[in-house]
């Protein structure tokens, strides 16, 4: 069973439905015991980093998620949930993340300015829509999809300095972090539950990973 962590951020109906569609058991929960008993954990999230990090801490679920990761359970953050896995974010100030992965989350606007992205392309913020994946490292998470497959993004911030955890990126003026993974901790900046069959195949690969059943 996969626990989908419910800490009051975003709508989890589609995520839950996508697990049902691939024939995997998933449970939306805010109970730390269920999270710790699950074989694997999904940390979802939409909205602002600061608010979400605060909600995660106020509910005490930050400890449950960290404990699950430390116990070796496959953990995957999605969208803002992925950003929360990093050390910190510069979204409206500076906020600490869970620090499970090395790297910081920064505004796409700044990243584009620094990398000298072509202003003629008039890239909009947020990046909203389907973009292709470029693979950076082999990983079982990507075993069911191909380089160049399209996935659905909605984000104004992106993770930087991910080092060896960078699995795939996507071209948006420059290359932005799309997918990360190190050991049992994974993250997708895009929404696998909204990325058609490609997204469902990523979730299948995640579910095929060795569980840390309690």
């Amino acid at each position, binding site marked *: 069973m996969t626990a989908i962590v419910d800490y009051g951020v975003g*709508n989890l*109906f*589609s995520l839950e*439905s*996508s697990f*049902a*569609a691939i024939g995997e058991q998933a449970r939306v929960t805010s109970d730390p015991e269920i999270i710790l008993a699950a074989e694997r954990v999904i940390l979802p999230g*939409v*909205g*602002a980093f600061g608010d979400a990090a605060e909600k995660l801490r106020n509910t005490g679920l930050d400890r449950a998620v960290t404990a699950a990761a430390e116990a070796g359970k496959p953990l995957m953050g999605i969208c803002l949930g992925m950003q929360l896995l990093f050390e910190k974010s510069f979204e409206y100030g500076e906020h600490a993340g869970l620090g499970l992965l090395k790297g910081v989350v920064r505004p796409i606007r700044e990243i584009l300015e620094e990398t000298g992205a072509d202003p003629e392309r*008039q*890239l*909009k*913020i*947020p*990046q*909203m*829509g*389907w*973009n*292709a994946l470029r693979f950076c490292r082999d990983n079982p998470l990507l075993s069911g999809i191909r380089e160049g497959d*399209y996935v*659905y*993004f*909605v984000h104004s911030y992106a993770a930087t300095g991910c080092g060896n955890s960078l699995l795939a990126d996507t*071209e*948006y003026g420059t290359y932005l972090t799309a997918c990360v993974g190190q050991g049992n901790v994974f993250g997708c900046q895009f*929404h696998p*539950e*909204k*990325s*058609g*069959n490609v*997204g*469902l195949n990523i979730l299948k690969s995640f579910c095929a990973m060795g569980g840390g059943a309690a």
Partner: protein
Amino acid sequence: MITKRIIPCLDVRDGRVVKGVNFQGLGDVDSPVRLAKYYSDCGADELVFYDITASAEGRALFTDILTETARQVFIPLTVGGGINTVADFDRVLKCGADKVSVNSGAIRNPSLIGQAAKKYGDQCVVLSVDVKRVDGVFRVFARGGRDNTGLEALEWIRRGVGDGAGEVVVNSIDTDGVKQGFDLEMLEAVCRVAKVPVIASGGAGKTEDFLTLFHRIPGVDAGLAASIFHFGEVRISDLKRAMAEAGIPVRI
């Protein structure tokens, strides 16, 4: 590279898909859930469900259909129609919508966009505008294109985006249902003021209309249409192949 999106729109009344020509003369097409699944399989990048139901029974039917669709279809789903309050946002988001589009509701209550964006995030709020030229000025129309609000459309859009709308759907009443192509002049004007994704709606009659749209107005992110897809005049898979051949970035 980010792709241009093709979005079929399903007008739903009492649980069935309908499409108005110039907003009148509605005719039944198919089951919304089946149609949504079919479009997703054909390569639609996103779906819009537009609830044109008036009754409470019809509204309950609509949320049932939405839930069933979100169970089976794994591409972004936008819902519009009858969205007047933050509680309406809540109602459709719980049933699996990813984005909510506001039109007349924002005209009646201009603070709605800001309230919803604060609660659900900008990415969730779509400003949908029905626009028609009146004496050479783009004016916002309400109630499905029946009432001239007197609002100047470009100013209304600038304000909506400033309040937190993360995307704008521009429906040209002048070209809607006529099938002679999108309203390029209107869309170009909107792209100059809106720095968020812009979705073109109204006027698509054939594949070339989409190619012209994306070639001529690079600021447009997506093309939306209803009847030409429903009646099979343009097949989404063929359209996307034609876009790729024409050098337009597209998901295939």
